[in-house]
Each structure stands twice: as C-alpha cells, then as structure tokens.
C-alpha cells in the first residue's frame, strides 16, 4: 500500500500526516486527527453524514480521497464554533429542536452553513435543494427547515461570531 505525506489546514490549523493513498478524507479526519464529529453513515456519498467544508464548499468526505485535500482548507463540525460561542447555525439547530439522534447533525449543519453562504435569505425551495444530500431519518426535516430560517435571521442580525 502506498503512503503519502498530506499537508492541509483543518479548522484553521496546519496539519501534516502520512496517509495511505486509498484513504478517504473522512478516514483521515477520524482516524488520524481524532475528529470524530465527521460521521460515516454509508461510505458511498449518499447519506451526507460525513459532510465537511473543503475550501468553503460542502463535500461528502467519504468520497474525497485524502490526497485530494493536499493544500486545502477543511472545516469540520469541531471547527465551527468560536470558542464556547456556537456558530449561529449550531445555535439555531439547538433552539429549533432540529436534532434528535444527532448522527446526521454535523453534516446537516455544515451543509446549512454552505447553503447560507450561497443563499443568505434562502427560499423554501433553496433550503430543500441545499439539504437534499443529507438524510435525516428522525425529524421529518421540518425543524431542520425552521433551524435554517432561524439561522439566516441570526446571521443577518450579526449574531454569533
């Protein structure tokens, strides 16, 4: 098995790790960096639980090869809050009751961050479209939609960081 050195930035910190060339980004985040907030639900890019931000865009990290992240800036769920201050999207998910078992939550939150970067005042259609890659089996999505709208308001008001 080939190994390669990978240099990239994760949650604002430079990282330098040896990885197998067949490893996914999700595996490196979890097994090498201990960032277990990135969940693996299917390993096939279908459920969205492993969503992280790569250079500002949401990606399913189980489908990104680790070596593709060379030089990239990655944000995982652990890097979203500012110290003890939750990101407005995190705050909104808690307040709206958008979390049940919580296994989809990290991916769902990061997809919402990406969605609101693109559409700061999202329409119903844009919310649904933006989250269609993230499966949730507990909530029926209703409170997640509420959380997205609430987060958009919070960001517009300049809450959080």
């Amino acid at each position, binding site marked *: 098995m080939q190994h390669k050195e990978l240099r990239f930035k994760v949650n604002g910190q430079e990282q330098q790790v040896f990885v197998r060339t067949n490893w996914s980004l999700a595996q490196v985040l979890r097994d090498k960096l201990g960032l277990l907030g990135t969940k693996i639900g299917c390993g096939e890019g279908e459920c969205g639980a492993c969503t992280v931000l790569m250079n500002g865009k949401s990606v399913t990290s189980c489908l990104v090869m680790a070596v593709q992240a060379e030089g990239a800036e990655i944000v995982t769920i652990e890097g979203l809050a500012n110290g003890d201050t939750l990101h407005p999207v995190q705050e909104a998910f808690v307040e709206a009751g958008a979390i049940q078992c919580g296994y989809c939550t*990290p991916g769902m939150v990061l997809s919402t961050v990406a969605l609101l970067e693109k559409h700061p005042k999202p329409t119903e259609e844009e919310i649904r479209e933006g989250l269609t890659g993230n499966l949730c089996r507990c909530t029926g999505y209703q409170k997640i939609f509420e959380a997205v709208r609430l987060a958009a308001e919070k960001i517009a008001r300049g809450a959080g960081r």
Partner: protein
Amino acid sequence: MSLTTKESEVRYEKGDYSIIGSRRPYVDAIDKVTGRTVYVTDISLPGMLHGRALRSPHPHARILNIDTSAAEKLPGVKCVLTGKNVRQKKWGPVTKDEYLLAIDKVNFVGDEVAAVAAVDEETCEEALSLIKVEYEPLPAVLSMYDAMKEGAPQIHGEFPGNVNHHFHIPRGDIETVFKNAYFVHEGQYEASLEYQAYIEPMGGVSVWDNRGNVTIYAGIQTPTWSRNDYAVALDVPVEKVRIVQPPFGGGFGAKLSQQVHPLGALIARHAKQPVRFCLDRVEDFQCGLPRVPMHFKLKTAWDKDGKYLAKKVDILADQGAYASYGAAITLTAMYRIDIMYQVPIVHSEAHLVYTNKVPTGCFRGFGNSQKHFAHESHLDEVAEHLGMEPDALRLRNIAVPGYMNPHGWKANSVEIEACIKTGMARSDFHEKRKKFFSFNKTESKIKKGIGMAPCVHVSGNRSFIKPFEGGAVLLRMNEQGKVFVYCNEPDMGQGIRTTLTMCVADALKLDFDHITVPDPDTDIVPFGLGCFASRGTYMATGAMHMAVNDMKTKLIKIASQILELPEEDLTLENGAVVSLSDPSKKVGYPEIAWKHVCDYPGQHMLGIGHFTPAGVEYPDEKKYNNISGGYAFGCHVAEVEVNTETGQVKVNEMWGIHDVGQPINELALEGQIQGGLAQGYGWALMEHLRYGTDGKIINACFLDYQVPTAADIPKINAELVDSFEWTTGFGAKSIGECCFIGIAPALQNAIYNAIGVRFYELPITAEKILAALREKNGL
C-alpha cells in the same frame, strides 16, 4: 394509592407544572451539534481490533467445507472463526433458531459463515477474501406465499411447513353475524419489506476481562433485556454480560436484540482483545431486521347506520430466515387495533412463516402499522359503500374512556374523538373534499384528494415477561446537590433524557445544569425492559413521579432539621427548601446534600421510584387480559395531487393530531410526530427492499433504496389535544410509534379520493399508479 396490577382505580391528578408541558431543546443537543457526542461507531478502546464477518452469497445452501488457512496466515490477522471451530448455542429473542456463525447450512444471503479479527478493517477485508467456502446450493423459499406449499424447501427442520407460529384468536360467533349483517365487506392488502434506515449502522465494541465477563458498548434499545439473549448466544451466564448503551444514531425498532453484538463479543473472546464490530451500510441493508411483510385478508360486518359488528382477519407474515420478534409482531397485527373501535366480535388467525430472506423484526408500529394500512384502507371502502363520510364512520365506532374490548383490554384516557375532529378542522377536510370533487371533474391532468386515518398504539405492552411489567427510576443526589438519574428506558434520539430531566427540574425545582442522565449501564441502572412498545415516557415518568416525591420528602426532612421549622411549613423553590411562612428562611440543596452525606457517612441521598401500570395483566393462554395502561391515539390526514400523465404523487400537506396524555416536552413531541409521519410517507410511497430471483436484495444502498429527502417531505403539522392519563403520575402516554401508524393509510385514502383507484400493496409508486390508471381507462 395501591400498587397491585389488579387495581384499576388509581387516579392521579394533573399537577401545577412549571416546566412539564413547555418546549425544551434536548439537554444533549449542544454536544451533538458540536460533534462532541461519542457514538457507538466512534468508540475506540486500548488494544482494540476490528472484526468483520464473511456472509453467505446463497439464499439457501449447505456448507460443505471452509478453508481458513490462508486467512490465518495473513499478517495482522488475530483469529478466524467459523461455526465449526467455536462453541455456540442457538439463540433468538422468541425462538432459538439462529447461530452466530452458521454450522451446516446458510439460510439467507448475508448469513454469517465466518468472522475475523485483525488490526484494521482493510486487513479484515483481505482476510475474508482469502477464506474459501464450498457450498451446495439448495432450492430456496423466496416468497412467503410459497413457504407453506407442499414440497416447499424446508428451512428449519424443527418447523415443518416453514411455519414458526400459528395463532388463532376467536372471540364470539362470527359466522352468524356475517350471515345476518346489512353489509359485509372483504378485501386483501399487502404491506411490504421496509428498512429502518437509521443513519448509524448497527454495531458494538466488546471487551472481556480475565474472569470471563464481557462488556459490550452497543447501539441498543434494550440493554438489560437483550443481555439475556446475548448470554444464550455466547453460552455464558447472564451476569457475565454487561451492556453499556452510548448514544447511537437511530433505531426505530431494529436495534433490539441483534446478531451483531453477540457475534462481536464472540470474536473478542477468541481474539482476547477488544473488538469493534460494526456493519457497513450494505451489510446493514442485507441483515438488519427490517419490517415484517404481511398479507391481510379482512372481512367485516356492518349495520346500515355504520355500526361495526364484526371483524375477521387472516394474516400471512414473512419473518425471513430467523424468527427475531416475528411472533409478537404478528400477534400485534392481529388485534392491537381492536382497542380503537368498539367491535364486539373479532376473529383473527395468522401464520408466521420462514423464508430464505433477511430476518425481519421490529420497526415502529410492530405489526400494528401493517394492520392499520389494511384496516384503515378497508374502512374507507366501507364508508363509501355505506354512503358515509370517512370520519363519520370512524366516529360512530370509536372507543371511549373505560371501554373494555373483547380481549379484556381497557382504555383509560381516550381523546380520539378530539383527534379526529381537530384533524378534520385543521385540514379543512370536508370543504376540500367538495372542492376537489368539482376540480377533479375538469380536464386537468392533476387530480386532487384528501384522506384520513385514525391510529392507536400502546404505551408499553405487557406480553414479554410474565411476572414483570413497569419501570424504575433511581435518583442520586451527590454531596454538591447534583442529581443523577438512573433509568433503563434509553435515549435513542427520541428525547427521553430530556423528558426525565424536565420531570426532575419541575418536581424538585432544580435547574437543568444540576441534573444528569448518564448512559444506561446494566451494572448500574435498575432493571427494565428498554425502549420498545412505546414504553419510555409512560413507564419512566410514572416511576419518576414516585422517585421525585421520595427525594422531596427527604430534602424537606433534613431542611426541617437545619432550619428548625416544621416540615409542613416547607416547600421547594429554585434549588432550595424554603419556608412558606417566612420565605427569607431557606436552605439550598448543596447544604442539605452535604448534611445527608455527613449524617449517613458517605451515603448520597436517593430517590427511589417504581411504576406498575394499573389494571394491566399478562395475557392468559387465550391472549386475554389488558396489555397496556396507556393507549395512545391519533389522527393523520394527507392532502395529495396526482399527475395522471406521470403517476407522480405530490403530497401538499400532512397533519398529525395526537392524544399523548399530558405532554412533557412539546418540542420533542412535535419532532416525533413530524418524524413519524415523514417515515410513514416513505413507507407508503417510496420504500421497498426488493429481492431478485437469485435471493439477493437488489437495492441495498441509499441510491437505489430511496428514503425521503428534504426535497420530498411536505409541510407536516403536529398538534396535541388536551388529555391526561390518570394511571401515571405525570399523566403522560407515549408517542414513539403511534405517530407513524396512520399516515400510510391516510395517503392511500387521499390517492383514492383523487383518482378513484385503490392500491392494495405498498408502496404506492408512480409506476403502479400509472399502470392502474391505464388499466382503468382501458389502455
């Protein structure tokens, strides 16, 4: 208050609640939203190895030979197990019919044949690829309709005809009623194989000590109860099995007793190191425990005013290769609904058969959902025949408080009338039916419809352990005045941790930061059955009511000594015991807790609570006796548009109106209702785990087995009607399953209302609709 089960005169009154009934985010939500929650698949122990299983590629085959020599030599492999080289006993929660590793014969594609432990997953995979198994394929039973046919292949020798259970529950002279009734209606319905699709697959981490004790960190709904099953599977005494239940990513019924935990423990025992054994998604599709498919023959009798006279049901149920909870699920399908309607004569019969497919098990509704699909479709047909509105027919026959049904079940609080009437009003049901009737006469390719179905489920089902039913809570106040809650009704995302926290906060006037509900650990928590049969809220809050009162009495007693005031003058307020006559006199819990620890050296103050549902008894040999103290009711409504050119159904809106007794956390209840309806939407319209003629699942991934996404699910309105269940301290019934049960038939009835075609098999897909419309139009 009496505590005997025979006593049904228990009557709790509604309290003056400050926190109960409010809307609270989950107490563990911040950990979940920041990625700090450690789930089962995140657990890593020192020295931990990984385990994987080799699975049968054949639906039915004899194992002739297994050669593991190459795998054993692979660097990084610790051990390779097969059914031939490990000691094991057959196990199963109802019927002991399954080995952890097949010995002579495999019975479905996915059956475990061998297992390995190795340093990482990749080495495990490589080792599995080196194991050579010689099979002799056997003819397979791939349809439940073939299972009982003469000459069908026999799956388990001890069950001739592939019949695991045959049930017959006759109540009353039904043939006379059918002969004399004004109207008799018959119909057949089929409920399909649906996969739970929790986002975290099944898994666990096992570790043994030198005294032969195993600890399994398991994604499990029933830690204490499943310990018994796992002990059998591992052939060890039950006290040797400890289960810790960390947070896990959803269960919906699938995560009761599972093969994955004892098999992981077996691998760890032989590896002599901790082993992580978690399924990947394809395996989880292949050998999770999806919903039991069922075929129903329903026959009902009615008078001309729509009075329900008799019901006969004949069920064929497919439990797949191994029995799991199939028998209990089938029983539920036979008669659970009989507490919703007052029907004096009910007959039910069922055959539960083995097939060479995935073992089927518990899934939200536990057979009752399958029955509701059949029965509530059927009742809409009856209403049409009798020229009655669908709600009017139901309202004519629903149960009332105190109703005793032919099985000896007694309803206590019943607000189904309010549920139906609220559902009709909120959805503007009758007005829409009129409008859609006119609209559907136009040339538009879109046809509109609205449909409804009421629903019922239990709050706990007394059918599992003869001498035991109920729940327990143990409260412990440490020397700083912090309260820990030990309970065996685990949280799997439904929010029982928050529910229990709210009850403590409300009754002891304590803020949430001083209350902790640790993960259940069978070495620590009181005995209990766990999270199934919608037990949690009803049982745990019932026990909690007694536990908080116990602790309250102790707090006041010690405060009375500190303050030198009579106990009658003291009350609880804001984390302190306060004098009613002079509120400036008070003492905080930390001081009281410290005095307790000093007066009884080292002992923490305990609050002990237990709960026995009043008037509930274990069913006799004729399945007679009340099985639940808190029947929960609801009414689901769906509004749809059907595109007659494509067959596509667009659901515009859904409503879930429920009677849950006293709501504890309204935010969580809404979340349960919305989640239940969304899952039911998937079952009704999209989901079907399908088998090819080779006995393999053809859609074992989320790309092919599509569950509803954010783009699919319409607006879901959740509402609770005013109710209080007087048999339990805080008046709360459970919601977990009832909120799933009505929506599939409501969608079916809405589609019928739109296009005048009824579908007797789930799911109702665009293809089926298009084909049916073509047939209807003679194309």
